[in-house]
């Protein structure tokens, strides 16, 4: 079961990013192995279609759940199509680590 958490930095103590398509980093967390890998988002400053590209990346990584603060309309359609669960959490200054701990 793979989960992606949007993050503003590439460490576990980085604050969680409220945006999906324009998040700085994606933290891929594998619940079974406990592995955490960070991927940089190359489309962070793209002019358009950041959401779609990010959603495509999620499909490529075979993610089953995405945790973010907000999803754009285009990203949502694609994530829906590939049956990826979207989770919107209210942001209370959480770090990536806090979110992972909540998952356990």
């Amino acid at each position, binding site marked *: 079961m793979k989960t992606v958490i949007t993050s503003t930095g590439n460490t576990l103590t980085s604050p969680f990013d*409220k945006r999906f398509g324009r998040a700085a980093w994606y933290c891929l967390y594998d619940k079974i192995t406990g592995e955490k890998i960070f991927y940089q988002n190359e489309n962070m400053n793209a002019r358009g279609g950041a959401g779609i590209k990010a959603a495509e990346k999620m499909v490529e990584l075979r993610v*089953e*759940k995405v*945790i973010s*603060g*907000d*999803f*754009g*309309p285009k990203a*949502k359609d694609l994530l*829906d199509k590939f*049956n*990826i*669960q*979207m*989770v*919107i*959490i*209210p*942001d209370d200054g959480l770090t990536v680590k806090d979110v992972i701990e*909540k*998952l356990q």
Partner: protein
Amino acid sequence: MPRRRRLRRVVAPPGFRGYRPYGVNKGSNESIELLYEEYEAIKLADYDLMNHQEASELMGVSRPTFARIYESARRKIAKAFVETNEIKTVYGNAWMDKNWFVCNGCYVRFTIPKTVKKHNCPICSSDNIELLKQ
């Protein structure tokens, strides 16, 4: 009898229940009700930077109607700012293009894709979830 209001398509509900000003000395009990479609209009136009034509097509209304929703949203927010009122989000005339659930334990909002069998909160695993509807 006026014409029936078309339901506005909303992609995702706002991630909050409301906003409250702080550092205010007058204790105002009044609150502004911001409808989901108004939140969506602000989001599409000013956050996703769409033009009104694209945004109106996405919400399933005409461009002039979109402009009216957007204007009403801006005026409500301005009123809340100036009169230091609380903003609350209410459902309004919207329909969610996908079933969104809310967890009553941790206020997380989420979708449940077909492939997921369990109907519980993905964060705290609570069963106390509710379909977002009025």
